[in-house]
């Protein structure tokens, strides 16, 4: 009797996992499985559903490669630009009086949706934007500069930086703040000047956070749709845009699913390689 009750309790206990595990299984594994199946022609909404490899054969065309390279380029550039600004900024803010106020002000871009941010910045750099008006009035340039939808993606890069620096700054600021005062004092006491304290203590202790924040921003920018759509080049554009166009404009859901699969594979392999390299770097430090 006793053992039977014990056994039943044990089985019911698994149900407690449902809210977490069920969520993961249904939305993550389920959706990913659907995507993989769709890429092979199954669950096709727009045509007859049947297994086929033709979508995978057709996907690796020039447009896809260009868009993939563009996505990687903008993600690498944006995450490097962000860390180059956020890291020194975190160190400077730590030294300033009123650091809390500055920090909460700097966080504001985090609460502004990407679309709004994009349009805000476009108002500044647009053909008839504030920047061009000022430059023309001051007779520095004769014709307004084409800054949005430029072929390299400078506008998109700027907006990505504007949107992601605060996010990175929060991570970097807490990393800088976590370096204990007495550890720095100990270093100074043992003969370390300002530069040595920075290179020997502060950098090695904050580098793990810097590495993590770079990869987080990389993923955010790599997967971006809105900012590139509004401010990025007309061609090439991000992989997300390509996927959207393929699914909704060309009504080709299986090909869009292939793009989705490749996006996930690229992101995961990039993150894995990066994680491996950063581990090596930290070990050698």
């Amino acid at each position: 009797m006793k053992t039977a009750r014990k056994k039943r309790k044990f089985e019911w206990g698994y149900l407690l996992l449902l809210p977490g595990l069920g969520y993961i299984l249904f939305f993550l594994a389920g959706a990913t499985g659907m995507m993989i199946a769709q890429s092979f022609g199954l669950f096709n909404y727009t045509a007859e559903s049947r297994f086929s490899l033709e979508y995978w054969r057709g996907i690796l065309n020039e447009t896809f490669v260009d868009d993939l390279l563009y996505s990687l380029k903008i993600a690498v550039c944006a995450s490097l630009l962000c860390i180059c600004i956020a890291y020194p900024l975190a160190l400077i803010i730590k030294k300033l009086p009123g650091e809390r106020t500055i920090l909460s002000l700097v966080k504001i871009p985090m609460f502004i949706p990407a679309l709004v941010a994009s349009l805000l910045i476009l108002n500044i750099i647009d053909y008839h934007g504030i920047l061009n008006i000022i430059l023309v009035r001051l007779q520095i340039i004769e014709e307004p500069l084409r800054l949005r939808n430029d072929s390299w993606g400078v506008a998109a890069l700027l907006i990505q930086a504007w949107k992601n620096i605060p996010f990175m700054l929060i991570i970097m600021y807490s990393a800088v703040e976590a370096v204990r005062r007495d550890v720095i004092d100990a270093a100074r006491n043992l003969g370390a000047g300002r530069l040595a304290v920075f290179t020997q203590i502060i950098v090695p202790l904050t580098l793990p956070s810097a590495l993590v924040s770079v990869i987080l921003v990389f993923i955010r920018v790599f997967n971006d749709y809105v900012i590139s759509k509004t401010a990025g080049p007309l061609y090439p554009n991000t992989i997300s845009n390509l996927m959207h166009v393929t699914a909704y404009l060309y009504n080709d859901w299986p090909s869009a699913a292939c793009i989705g699969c490749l996006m996930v594979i690229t992101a995961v392999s990039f993150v894995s390689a990066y994680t491996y390299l950063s581990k090596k770097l930290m070990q050698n430090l």
Partner: protein
Amino acid sequence: MAEGLSLKNITKRFGNFTALNHVSFDIKPGEFVTLLGPSGCGKTTLLRIIAGFLEPDEGEVWFGDQKMNDVPPHKRNTAMCFQSYALFPHKTVYENIRFGLRMRKVPASQHRALVEEAMAMVNLTGLENRKPYELSGGQQQRVALARSVVVRPNILLFDEPLSNLDAKLREKVRVEIRDLQRKLGITAIYVTHDQSEALAISDTIISMNQGAIIQKSDPRTIYDRPVSKFIADFIGTANLVPCTVTRQQGSLFQVQSPYGMLLAEDKDFPHDSGEYYLCIRPEDVRPVLDGEPAGEDNILEGVVKNSIYMGNTLDLFARVQTEPLRASVWKDYHIEEGTRIRFAVPRSKIRILEG
């Protein structure tokens, strides 16, 4: 080489709060000095001024014959052991200890030998490649100690280095610190609020309160002949009661106190009469059993309220007239609570103090 140290009129304020108020003292080369006082008395501030982490608002810091006020911390040849150890978490034990050598541009060819020597001094050999988080508290403190002595500083600074260790280990490490300092002949300044640690480790104790020095003397003097009620109370335990004093002749005083009329022999007390405090250490109180002669000693008669067996002593909390009296007596006495008893206190063991 060991160097002496002089502080001249050091004053430090934080806003309206005066942390140090015209503090001056000299320390001889090779001396082990403890700054002792309750928290907030300014002892750590003083240590940080000596290390150069804080600048005094007034006054001068001298190492030997060199004025150090404008010398930044990394150019003063001091080495500090922190309460939190402050080891570099990302470096191995070996790299932690070597850090000071690298910073002070000691030729790299000497590093290994110097680090190994320092590690041997504090019994850390074999732990070179561990990270600080893999060590126990005592081991971490030893790494901090090795890291400090390896650079051969002129002055070693300790900021409550043992307060995070358990009692047994504390006693062990403090003996090691003392031995090491003697062997290397380095001047040491040690901050603590633990009076037994200060008594055990120092050549000289500088007792501080509210940003000022109250007494500077060797451990025996500061314990036996405290100059004020504050020190008698802070260092060790003491029975302290208000009293009226009249000088009889020489150093003999008649003392009217809640314990009754007593005679005290105090060579240091400068005044002839007035209202002061008398101080009796519990271990100077001796029970007088029936039939025992008391000689010239003062006799205090009371009732034992609590009798607590401590192992090494028997602690008695008695009431003499209306006043509590604490006595710490030989452990083999069997004295029950409620016993009426006579206590003897030698005249020379009663000290008269200003409030």
